[in-house]
């Protein structure tokens, strides 16, 4: 059951190993590609950077949109408010103007209905004059003069009393003509210089005339005439000046129903051509708010009609005035946005750090683990990340346990393989040797039999070696000598053996019983088939930190195909010997010392064969022996070799 479980684990691990190898290969490719300028810009960012970037981008976008919307909203509101306040101001001013004009109409009505209609000019001239004087005195703040003209244009009465200019010819003056044009109405003229009286001040007055046709009774005869009430333009001017105080380009003007300007803050500039006004268009409008484009300037024009006169009070708000009013708001919104973005960026950093910190710590734990350390896996942060930490920690613990199990299992397997290989040597050889000894004793060659037994004893002593797999080279050579001595007796000195091994090699480690199968092969395949006296030479030397032990024979040799099959074909049928082939020896060396060590075979047909054992120079100590037998030394060496690669 356990074996099954381990097997499946191993299978899983092998699969995982394959996957890891594939993954690392892909990673390598990606790295090399990036190195040459591949995905440098699309390199995945850290989680905190990503979070912060996304948060900041979203918050800045929202800020920009809300700032823009806020500005539009504010500007629309401000525009509406400006228009509304302008309308209110215009309504108030319009009412003031109407009040003023009504009071002038009342003066005119009073003069006409209470004075002129009730009096006869020839009989009551004095009374008319004094009553006009009373009326004038009561309204002189707003009035310039009151005058009554007959149908010839001659002055009948005037207040204040002043000398009439020499031949002013009132019949040619606009106010007189207008009064005659529509006899039932009162007429308000546009402002003009009063050209009627000479009060001795050498001054000319700017007036607005209210004229109407009247019925005059003179000596009982009724006739028509014209009543003139000249209003001081300064009053209208003052009212308009009061609202024309804004410095942002907004202004108000007054025009009659034909667009003739009555008051304009830039009246003379307009007359001189220094400025202009779209008054005729404004005069054609009914009361309301209009869009206007005058000389390339967009404006809002608000029109308010003054009752009784048909005059239009016009308010003009250039769009630049709206912008002027919004400049401060614009700065304020930009400032607000900048400060909010500053705060948001800081807040985003804190939030992203809080979110990413547990993940980063967990990642650091994983990286440390991958680097070969055994850190405490970070467990903290949000519930999901804590669970992830727990899970990773548990996985690592399971992996560790499995790794330990696998190592133990592998060691055991190797040992059993080694033991199995070594155990293949003994039976056949022992049978042949004992057969030879028997034969010697029967033949009475007791000395030779005794020598052979002693050599066999040495052979087995070394073969046993307290059950060690790794022995020193001295013992291995002794084992080889004993074996060759036995074989020489068996083969009746059909070959000669020479040992040429450097003494300095004796103290190094070697896998037990590796020379013997090679020597056996040399005897069986190299010497046995030849008629000449065979020669087998065992040599040993140190080359570049490696120990090379070679067995050379002068036998029949092999072709290159056979040489190549020698170390690969495990199923090869041995014609002679113990059946322990070079494959066996080669495997044992590789198991103990590593895959880069083993046997090298060189052979030429009819020339002989050289089989060389190549092993690392490891001094024979108890510690090294144990390490080699446990496979740890070999693993340590591998790790030491890998380290520089990682660095």
């Amino acid at each position, binding site marked *: 059951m356990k074996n099954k479980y381990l097997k499946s684990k191993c299978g899983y691990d092998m699969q995982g190993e394959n996957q890891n190898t594939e993954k690392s290969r892909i990673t390598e490719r990606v790295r090399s590609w990036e190195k040459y300028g591949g995905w440098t810009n699309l390199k995945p960012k850290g989680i905190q950077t990503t979070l912060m970037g996304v948060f900041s981008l979203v918050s800045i976008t929202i800020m920009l949109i809300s700032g823009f919307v806020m500005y539009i909203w504010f500007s629309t509101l401000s525009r509406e408010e400006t228009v509304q306040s302008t309308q209110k101001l215009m309504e108030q001013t319009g009412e003031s103007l109407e009040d003023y004009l009504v009071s002038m109409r009342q003066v005119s009505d009073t003069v006409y209905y209470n004075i002129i209609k009730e009096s006869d000019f020839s009989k009551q001239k004095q009374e008319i004059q004094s009553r006009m004087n009373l009326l004038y005195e009561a309204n002189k703040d707003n009035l310039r003069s009151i005058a009554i003209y007959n149908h010839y244009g001659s002055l009948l009465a005037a207040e204040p009393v002043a000398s009439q200019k020499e031949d002013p010819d009132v019949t040619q003056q606009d106010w007189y003509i207008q009064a005659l044009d529509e006899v039932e109405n009162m007429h308000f003229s546009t402002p003009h210089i009063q050209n009627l009286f000479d009060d001795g001040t050498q001054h*000319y007055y700017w007036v607005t005339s209210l004229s109407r046709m009247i019925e005059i009774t003179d000596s009982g005869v009724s006739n028509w005439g014209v009543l003139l009430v000249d209003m001081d333009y300064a009053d209208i001017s003052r009212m308009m000046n009061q609202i024309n105080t804004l410095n942002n380009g907004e202004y108000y003007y007054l025009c009659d129903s034909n667009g003739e300007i009555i008051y304009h803050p830039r*009246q003379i500039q307009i007359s001189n051509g220094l400025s202009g006004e779209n008054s005729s268009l404004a005069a054609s409008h009914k009361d309301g708010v209009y869009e206007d484009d005058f000389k390339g300037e967009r404006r809002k024009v608000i029109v308010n009609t003054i009752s009784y006169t048909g005059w239009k009070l016009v308010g003009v708000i250039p769009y630049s005035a709206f912008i002027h009013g919004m400049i401060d708001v614009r*700065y304020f919104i930009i400032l607000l946005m900048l400060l909010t973005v500053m705060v948001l960026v800081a807040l985003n950093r804190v939030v992203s750090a809080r979110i990413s910190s547990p993940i980063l710590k967990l990642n650091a734990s994983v990286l440390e683990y991958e680097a070969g350390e055994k850190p405490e896996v970070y467990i903290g942060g949000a519930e999901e990340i804590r669970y992830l930490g727990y899970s990773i920690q548990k996985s690592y613990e399971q992996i560790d346990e499995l790794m330990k199990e696998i190592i133990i299992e592998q060691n055991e397997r190797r040992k059993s393989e080694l033991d199995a290989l070594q155990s293949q040597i003994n039976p056949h050889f022992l049978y042949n040797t004992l057969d030879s000894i028997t034969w010697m004793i029967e033949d009475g060659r007791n000395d030779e039999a005794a020598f052979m037994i002693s050599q066999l004893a040495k052979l087995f002593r070394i073969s046993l070696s307290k059950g060690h797999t790794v022995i020193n080279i001295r013992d291995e050579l002794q084992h080889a000598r004993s074996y060759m001595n036995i074989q020489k007796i068996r083969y009746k000195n059909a070959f000669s053996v020479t040992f040429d091994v450097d003494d300095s090699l004796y103290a190094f480690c070697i896998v037990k019983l590796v020379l013997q199968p090679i020597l056996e092969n040399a005897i069986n395949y190299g010497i046995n088939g030849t008629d000449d006296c065979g020669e087998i030479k065992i040599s040993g030397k140190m080359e570049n930190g490696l120990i090379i032990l070679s067995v050379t024979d002068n036998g029949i040799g092999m072709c290159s195909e056979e040489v190549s099959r020698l170390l690969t074909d495990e199923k090869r049928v041995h014609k002679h010997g113990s059946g322990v082939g070079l494959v066996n020896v080669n495997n044992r060396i590789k198991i103990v010392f590593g895959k880069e060590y083993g046997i090298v075979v060189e052979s030429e047909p009819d020339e002989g064969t050289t089989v060389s054992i190549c092993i690392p120079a490891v001094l024979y100590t108890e510690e090294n022996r144990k390490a080699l037998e446990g496979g740890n030394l070999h693993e340590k060496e591998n790790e030491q070799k890998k380290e520089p690669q990682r660095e």
Partner: protein
Amino acid sequence: MKNGKKIFILVETFLGLMVFVLVMFMFLEKNEKKQEKISVIIQNSDDSQWAAFKYGAKMAAADKKTEVFVVSTAGSLSVQEEENLIEREIANGASGIIVEPANGEKTEKMLKEVEKKVPVVLVESLASSDGTETKMPVTGADNYAMGKALAEELLKDCGGNIKGKKIGLVSGEENAEAISERAEGVRAVLEEKQADILWQISDSFAEDKEKNSMEQSEKVDFIMTLDNISLVAAGECSSTNNLHGAVLYGIGHSMEAFYYLDTGEIQCLVVPDEFNRGYQSVAELSDSLRRFMKKPERNTVSYSTVRRETLFSKENQEVLFTMSQ
């Protein structure tokens, strides 16, 4: 320091800088709203002849959003007095000066010194030391043309024949450049027609010496006055029949001049556009103060001929309007 932290600090610093710049910008903009101050120095500034000029200057100040201050002066100024006034105005923060140059040889030199400190615009012609007209910027009507126009009006009234007619010229300070130019214009026309210019008198008007001079001078058919003060003084003489029946023509720009035209004391009046003189001089100076490298330039304003019949035309009513402000 990690990259993320570096970027964070950089972004915050950048935003902080932007806030600082914006606040500074707002602060500076508030301060920038301070208006330039232009001082106007004219002789006898409260006289009615300057009413239209001052109204024009006021309108230009409103249009150009500039502050204009008319220095109060009584009577004519000497070069030294004018210099003192200019220095005082500059010390009080005047960014530009509009000045009616005092009559004197050193005036141009003095004004050129002033011009090194602040831009200056003259509202009357000024003779240079070499006798030619100054190259300093002047805003005003063409004096020579006005003189010619006045003489041509006389010529028109006489049916083109004024041969042998006796004419007297009256002006303020004779050696003033404007008066000289106007007289030159008048003479150019009249002398060509062989009119007899018997005399030209000039005097200080503050003491009514001119009136006396005019009354005591030899009897002439026509008197032509070359400036507003002389014209008003002559009009007054005429109203009291002290001109011995001489018909009066003149150059003037006050309501009194119009009044005497209206009452028939003056036959014809040539009126320089004083509103525009005031408007243009302030506008020109204001532009030069606001525009880098822009220097004030010479501006010529128009003039009109007014007779009693056209006194209350729409255009002339507007002239009277500017004078009544």
